[in-house]
């Protein structure tokens, strides 16, 4: 039992936290009855524990609990879209670049190097400032900034997998390229994709919040944790709860996903163990 806990303890805790966050996101309408956008100016800036508002209200009298719970929807939706987009696009490009070692792959990897030579958050921020604000554009910006990691990792893996005997055997049997790539090479690089995805997931969510915090990304009144934190700065002297709860929700989400990611890495790939 104790060996199980040392090996899987983090995974258990991580999955518990992540499930909690997913539950909050999915069940938000049943957990709270207030509308996260419904303002009530007379009831503004009520402290936590006020009747009907367990976490208090914001400057417009909107229920903070409702906003934090609905914020989980926004965060998870953005994180999930970004991870799916980058995993498919980056993974596919990495697969092709690793399998056909021609000049297009080499050019692509040089571009990836250039992109990696720039701070991720600054890159995503610059792209977002240029393509424009809003939910769709923040997903696009983060994905454009994030695909390179998959391409790099997958290409490296494919380079080694395709030297293995079963690939040569499949080639000798006269398998088509597409079949070889997707039936024999891809399954062997999938664990790496899963590991990168789980580690990137939290990074995307935190980056989205940071960008929205700076005034780009998701715009008010959409209840996103980052823009809620941004608004809370003006009220820090009078209403600490506006900053405390959305940030705590964000940190908890990142913690849960990171723990799951660490655990997956340990279980799926002992080489990367930290």
């Amino acid at each position, binding site marked *: 039992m104790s060996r199980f806990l040392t090996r899987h303890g983090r995974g258990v805790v991580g999955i518990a936290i992540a499930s909690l966050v997913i539950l909050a996101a999915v069940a938000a309408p049943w957990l709270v009855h207030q509308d996260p956008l419904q303002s009530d100016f007379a009831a503004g800036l009520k402290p936590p524990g006020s009747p009907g508002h367990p976490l208090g209200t914001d400057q417009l009298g909107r229920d903070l609990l409702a906003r934090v719970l609905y914020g989980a929807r926004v965060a998870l939706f953005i994180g999930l879209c970004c991870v799916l987009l980058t995993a498919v696009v980056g993974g596919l490009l990495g697969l092709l670049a690793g399998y056909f070692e021609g000049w297009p792959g080499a050019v692509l990897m040089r571009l990836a190097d250039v992109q990696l030579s*720039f701070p991720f958050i600054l890159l995503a921020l610059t792209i977002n400032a240029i393509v424009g604000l809003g939910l769709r554009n923040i997903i696009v910006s983060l994905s454009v900034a994030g695909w390179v990691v998959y391409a790099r990792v997958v290409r490296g893996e494919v380079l080694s997998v395709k030297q293995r005997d079963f690939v040569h055997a499949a080639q000798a049997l006269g398998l088509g390229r597409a079949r070889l790539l997707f039936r024999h090479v891809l399954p062997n690089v999938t664990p790496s994709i899963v590991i990168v995805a789980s580690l990137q997931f939290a990074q995307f969510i935190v980056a989205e919040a940071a960008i929205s915090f700076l005034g780009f990304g998701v715009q008010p009144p959409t209840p996103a944790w980052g823009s809620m934190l941004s608004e809370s700065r003006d009220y820090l002297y009078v209403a600490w709860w506006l900053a405390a709860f959305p940030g705590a929700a964000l940190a908890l989400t990142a913690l849960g996903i990171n723990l799951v990611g660490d655990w997956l890495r340990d279980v799926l790939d002992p080489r990367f163990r930290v």
Partner: protein
Amino acid sequence: MRAYLLSRLGQTVLVVFLSLTAVFFLVRLGGDPVLLFLPMDIQAKDLDEFRERLGFNDPLAVQYGRFVSRAAHGDFGESLRYRRDALWLVLERLPATLSLAGSALLLTFCVAVPVGVLSAVRRGSLLDFLGMGAAVLGQAVPGFWLGLMMIYLFSVRLGWLPTGGMGGPLHFVMPCVVLASFYAARMARITRSSVLDTLNEEYVLTARAKGLGEPVVIGKHTLKNSAIPIVTLAGLDTGQLLGGAVITETIFAWPGLGRLTVQALLNRDFPVVLAAVFLFSVTYTLINFLVDLLYGWLDPRTRARVRA
């Protein structure tokens, strides 16, 4: 060595050139900067004059050629907002950012390496548990939230520290801690795993068998040999630290390059954005180059490859 230095220089120029090109075209595709920049009530005549003066009426290829030839001479144009040379405006802010990033890096090292080494040496102890627990938390807590909470506690409640701006040593405390927290957490974990790997090596066993004291075994035989992953991460992180400074500087009103970049992006002050991108990519590639030189010092085996 000379050929190596030349090829590194070539790479640096390529990276900087490609980043600038990418941002230039992104900016131009993003819409008419004049409309976004000037006030709503401007007259059409002035609008056109402004465009003409900035050369926005020329074909894109012409604009790009002009931009490249000027940028090669260090001329990124005038800031649209401040009407001053963009590169100068950016360079003026660089010392503030470097001093913040530098002290955050120092703090990262001073906290993370001892914690990582002690956790590895006393593996499974309470210290290990607490240290790594703190590291996992530090990786999950976003810097900008930590910053807000620290401002609330130390400035609003206790009144010990200034809420922001640059001034005495006290002004450094919160921005530094906030910037360092994430990187210190990750570095502590890497240090721990790297030291654990090295402790299993036979030369460590030999050193112990010779009767060397634990400080020498750890300090001399283990730490130097586990330094490669730590230095690699530090190199990668120093660049990311510059990115993290963008957010930290905004929270603490730190007059650095990151805050200027955010403001320039918000104001669509594109000459300043391009000059900042230039400076970021030059700094970042220089740091990576220094890290590569450090490898040679830490691991003589890599020197042979450099010479070849």
